[in-house]
Every structure is written in structure tokens, then in C-alpha cells.
């Protein structure tokens, strides 16, 4: 698949927001899915070589967006792509979030992990859910797209570790004060997700988390993105890119995960 870059905005020092046009893509995608993006625009240039995985942040009828953080080679190139440029990517990949209806749900996001939760919020709202967003970051510079989330969330609670926006502290601390959710959806740093899963277990709430592992193929062939899941017979391997990136948080063997 390919599509034109509609916009590629720098939100602040390290965060960018890009929209890509492709109607076929949006017809196929579901919240929580990701795609593999070729950050090297020219096929004849082989460095960086591999495509990069990104969560689908939002969609409309014309295209989709991604919220990304500047990390290394690929995202550095991505940040330099100008609007109008034709870029290549895979179709929507992986296993998305399972949507509930008529429920009270919590979305818990940390840093750039907020990315897939916007499209999720949009779809959950369509199913008459009451949505509370818990959004954490190191500082106010890590908090984005609040205006977009306001369109779908009944309540937004923000925390930053340095206290520059919202409540000072970790987002997981905000969770302790409310325990009446029907389901929690989570995406962010592993420690934050683990803490959120612990909260969910304690309160017997369903929880799905979106994981990230380094990916080469993104489609289930290379076996480079393995996740360890607890099943009745013991711990089994799953591919983050096919059986994930969304998993039942309570089934993840957190101690076996990387980083």
C-alpha cells in the first residue's frame, strides 16, 4: 500500500503527528492494529533497511494518522518527510482491541503509548460506552491530542512525573481512586502497563494491553517479536505482530518480557 502524506506536524521537541491518505487502508482497519511503514522513501536506498511498526492513531474516511516519537534513524527520516510525499506501508496488521458496548471503560495511556487509544476511544464512543482517559507522561511535553480525545471521552485525567501538567506523579496513582470500570484498555511503557494490570487484577476488571517488541517482518514470519503468554498448560510463545499487539493483560508473563 501507498498513500500521500496529508500533513506531518511537529507537535513539540520529539513528538510528531502525521496523516496519510488511503481509503482502502481505512476500510480494513480496527482499533489497536498497527502497520509497517517504510521510512526510507527511496526503494534503491537500503539504509535504514527494515520497515517500522506504528499504531493506528486515528482514522477518517480518507486516511489515517500516526503519532510518533523521534527515536533513531527511521523516525528521524519520518520527521523529515514533507506533505505531498508518497510513502509505502503495509495494510493494517495484528490483533486489535476487543470492543465492549454500554460499559464504563478506562483508557490508560503513557507517553507515545497514547497513540492507539484515540481511534479506540472513537470506536468505543460509537458503542455507547462511558470513557475515562488516564493519560501519563514525564512532563507536559509528553501530553498531546487532548482536543481530539475530548471529542470522545467523558473524563480526562492527566498526570506528569514532574507535575508540569495535571497531577504530579504516575498515571497509575490516579487509578487507585476509582475501581468501578467494566474494562481497562492500556498502552504505554511496560512498567506502567504491569502496574495497570495489577490494578485490574486487584479489582477484577477485564484488561487489554498493547505491547511493542522490536519487529523485522511485522507479519508473523521472522519470529523476532515473541511474547510469553500464560495458558493452562504453562507459558507459551505468541507473536506480538500476529497474536498481538493487543493481549489480555492478565495472561502476559511480564517477567519474561524484554526491557
Amino acid at each position, binding site marked *: 500500500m501507498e498513500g500521500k502524506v496529508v500533513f506531518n506536524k511537529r507537535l513539540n521537541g520529539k513528538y510528531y503527528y502525521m496523516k496519510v491518505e488511503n481509503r482502502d487502508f481505512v476500510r480494513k482497519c480496527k482499533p489497536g492494529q498497527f502497520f509497517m511503514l517504510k521510512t526510507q522513501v527511496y526503494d534503491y536506498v537500503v539504509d535504514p*533497511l*527494515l520497515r517500522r511498526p506504528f499504531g493506528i492513531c486515528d482514522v477518517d474516511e480518507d486516511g489515517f494518522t500516526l503519532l510518533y516519537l523521534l527515536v533513531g534513524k527511521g523516525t528521524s527520516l519520518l520527521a523529515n518527510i514533507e506533505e505531498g510525499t508518497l510513502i509505502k506501508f503495509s495494510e493494517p496488521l495484528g490483533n486489535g482491541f476487543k470492543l465492549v458496548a454500554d460499559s464504563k471503560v478506562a483508557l490508560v495511556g503513557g507517553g507515545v503509548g497514547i497513540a492507539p487509544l484515540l481511534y479506540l476511544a472513537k470506536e468505543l464512543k460509537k458503542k455507547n460506552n462511558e470513557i475515562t482517559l488516564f493519560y501519563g507522561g514525564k512532563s507536559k511535553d509528553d501530553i498531546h491530542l487532548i482536543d481530539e480525545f475530548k471529542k470522545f471521552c467523558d473524563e480526562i485525567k492527566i498526570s506528569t512525573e514532574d507535575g508540569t501538567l495535571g497531577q504530579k506523579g504516575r498515571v497509575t496513582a490516579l487509578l487507585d481512586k476509582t475501581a468501578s470500570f467494566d474494562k481497562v484498555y492500556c498502552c504505554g511503557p511496560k512498567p506502567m502497563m504491569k502496574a495497570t494490570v495489577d490494578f485490574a487484577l486487584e479489582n477484577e476488571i477485564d484488561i487489554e494491553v498493547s505491547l511493542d517488541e*522490536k519487529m*523485522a*517482518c*511485522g507479519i508473523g514470519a*521472522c*519470529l523476532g517479536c*515473541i511474547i510469553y503468554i500464560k495458558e493452562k498448560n504453562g507459558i507459551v510463545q505468541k507473536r506480538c505482530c500476529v497474536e498481538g499487539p493487543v493481549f489480555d493483560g492478565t495472561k502476559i508473563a511480564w517477567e519474561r518480557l*524484554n526491557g
Partner: protein
Amino acid sequence: MANKNPLEIELCGIKFKNPIITASGTFGYGIEYSRFIDISKLGGISVKGLSLHEVPGNKMPRIIETPAGMLNAIGLQNIGVDRFISEKLPQLRKYDTRIIVNFWGKTVDEYVEVAKKLDVITDIDMLEMNISCPNIKEGGIAFGTDPKMTEKVVSAVKKNIRNKPLIVKLSPNVTDIKLFAKICEDSGADAISAINTLLGMSIDIDTRKPHISNITGGLSGPAIKPVAVRMVYEVFKTVKVPVIGIGGIMNYKDVVEFFLAGASAVQVGTANFVDPEIPLKIVDDLSKYINKNKINNISELTGSFDI
């Protein structure tokens, strides 16, 4: 002949509609890609390296990108030969493409046992023996870097199979690949595939740890192409059996280059991760190249480079 497919090749008596085979470990068991491309258009698929029993593979992380390449230490994870035959092969068989099964073992006996199980399956076209994976923590598979062990394991497998031609896949991590190629041929190999990955390492300067938990991993992708081309040439000059070229192929020009160096077919590996459509684009572009250059059959290119 006018209507003969100019991309059709024959390897060890087996016809391939074109010389583009996907490389073991980069194309899963084949069916993973069926959602993205028409795998019937491939000449062949070399499936993920199978062992006697299921292998869980190495600890994470297992991959890291490098300049124009990647390192992997998957650890030969696979579902085992029995589950492959019962669960994957029936699905894969639906497609019109040659099926090559890549396999390995920890001992000579294991190699033989896996080979024998595969040898009787009519849906499989060829066997490819991986004697060169550097990823096993137990010191690595020594077979592919020890001449005596190579002779032993190839002879043993060849003696125990009757139906399938045997390709032996060579490691590049040796002083003289010609020696290993000759040993393989003399031990009965029906074809040689070259090369498997180069042994490499990458350290994260922030964590001060290796990027992959196995410490070292196999280097693949365009970065290694010049080494692969050189080794194909050396093997071609050494053996009479056909050589299958592997290493860094990204486009049709790379394929022509490998043919000129001596290849009779090629395998496309890491490129499948870059874009699943690459092998099919290669088939299309190769067709155009063959037509434009008025070549009757691609096999005419094998070893035809001008010194």
C-alpha cells in the same frame, strides 16, 4: 522455443517456473505471506528450518537492524518436523510453487532422522540442509565450520534418503568455502546453497548490553551481498552441482549478478521483511530483462560473467 517460459529452470531434475525462491527463516512456513502476495507466482519456498522436535528458540531480543542489514538470533525456533507435516504442509500444498524443506539437527542422527521423515512426503520437492546456523547457544552448530563434521553429516543424510534431492546450505564464516563445497559434493550433495548469515554483533551504548540476548547473531541483507556473490563464484568454480545464490538480494539486478557469478537459482531472504512484494517484483522485472536482452532462458546467464 517461442512459447517456452524463459524463466523456467531445472534443479536436480525438478522444474521451477522461475528461479526465485524465498529463503528459509524469512518466509515462515510460507502461508504467512499468502495474505500479502500470490505465493503461487514464486518459483519456490524454503520453509523455516525444521528440527526433530519443536524448539522454542532464543530469549528476546532476537533482532536488530544494522547498516543495510540486520542481525538475528532467532535460535532456530520451529514447530518440529511432525507438526510441520501435519499442520502447515497441507495448507502450503495448495499453492503452485516448489516446496523446499530446510532442516537441521543437534547430532548426525537427528539430521538423519528429520531427513528420513521428510523424504517420504510426496508434497515436498527438495530438502535443504542447514549445517551453518551460528545461533545455538550450545556453542553453535560446528558442522558447517568443521570439514570432517561436514563430510560426516552430509554423507549420513545422503545415505539415508532416496526420494528427494539434497541441497546443502553453506556457512560463510569459514576460511575457504571452496573446501566445504567440494566436501559436500563428494559426500553426495545434489546442490549447494550459499550463503547463510555472517556472524555479527551489535552493542547498545545506552544499556551497554548486546542488542540481542544471544550476544551474537546472523547478519543478513544488502550489506552482505558482495561476500555472498564472491562465495557463489568460488563455489561455482569448484563444484559441478548447481549453486543456489543467497545473500542480500533486493531486486532483479541482484539476481542477474548472482546468475553471472554462477548461480542456477536464487533465494530472497531479508528483502521479504522490507516488502513482501519484492520477490514478485523481481519475477516481473527479470522477465522484462530477459525479453529486452533477447535471452532464451535465464539459465544461459549462469556463470557467464566475463573475466
